[in-house]
């Protein structure tokens, strides 16, 4: 049943990511109308619970989704199995999550 669980988790993440990607793209197009300015972006994101939750959730969903996808690639193309496969995927998940949340914190948390 591992595959069933992972399949459902990956689809759930995809469903979470779909609207978040649309929000991201929409705001990106809106935000660059007056030129690409880091200060302007930070004014909008710093201290914002909404953007923190939005990108925080996105990072979690991406980390789960990508780690499950990578697991399939490693198993099928590199014949990785068992504990080694699980370990590599957990590490990849943790790395993505840490890097992503650090980036979210950098634009949301007030310095």
């Amino acid at each position: 049943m591992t595959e069933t669980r992972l399949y459902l988790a990956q689809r759930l993440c995809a469903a979470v990511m779909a609207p978040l990607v649309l929000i991201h793209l929409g705001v990106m197009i809106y935000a660059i109308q007056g030129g690409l300015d880091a200060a302007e972006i930070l004014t909008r994101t710093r201290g914002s619970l909404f953007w923190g939750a939005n990108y925080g959730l996105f990072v979690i969903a991406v980390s789960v989704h990508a780690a499950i996808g990578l697991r399939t690639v490693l198993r099928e193309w590199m014949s990785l199995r068992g504990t080694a496969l699980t370990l590599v995927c957990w590490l990849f998940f943790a790395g993505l999550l840490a890097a992503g949340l650090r980036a979210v914190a950098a634009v949301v948390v007030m310095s």
Partner: protein
Amino acid sequence: MSTSSSAAAAPITVRVWRGVTDAGEFQEFQVPQQPSQTILDVVTWIQRHADASLSYRFACRVGMCGSCAMMVNGIPRWTCRTHVNKVMQDNRLTIEPLRNLPLIKDLACDMTIFFEKWKQAEGHFQGAATRNDSVSRLSPNSPQRRVANAATECINCAICYASCDVVSWNPEYLGPAALNRAWSLQNDERDTATEKRLRVVASDAGCHQCHSQQGCATYCPNELNPTASIAGLKRQVTSAWMRGQLRKDND
């Protein structure tokens, strides 16, 4: 064999795999062209006129038994219904045994694992009626029956199995034919083993391995769509999982 109309056509250069997987090589033959000639005709000509030791498998010669499938120029095909002039490239043909199956000799594969997986997927009908019951009345137009019918015309040729990359990467994967059969039975309203079958289908060798690449649907000689059947199984598994059906005592 008639030679009147073949006199003008150049002979076909046919490369045929000889031997077994670890010890074999291609052997080249020159085969006369004939009108309406099939790949199976070519292989049969070689065995009868060039090398009687060539091993291959066939039975009905009319596309019903599913025993003559081979790789032709790299693509899995039913050889008895494949015309030479449709697939020949520069007067050359390369004929190999089916991919993803162990080889016995030359062009004859060992189909055991293919049928074992069929059984593993609970691919046989399991009903509750006895010979004393009257014949079930099924409406051919009911939505469920239409879905079951769409997947029933499989002739077990293993072309889908040979075309599936997931099978080549993961030998435990049940494969498109077994899962297509399971889907057909899942939609047979007389069948009583749907939950048992769904547990196998949802296992780690089951439907979730499929990447919907659709090699099976592309090459199925009967134009079935095992990818769609597997997608149906994924929906059924998801639905059963949501209802908590598959979670108990099966981890």
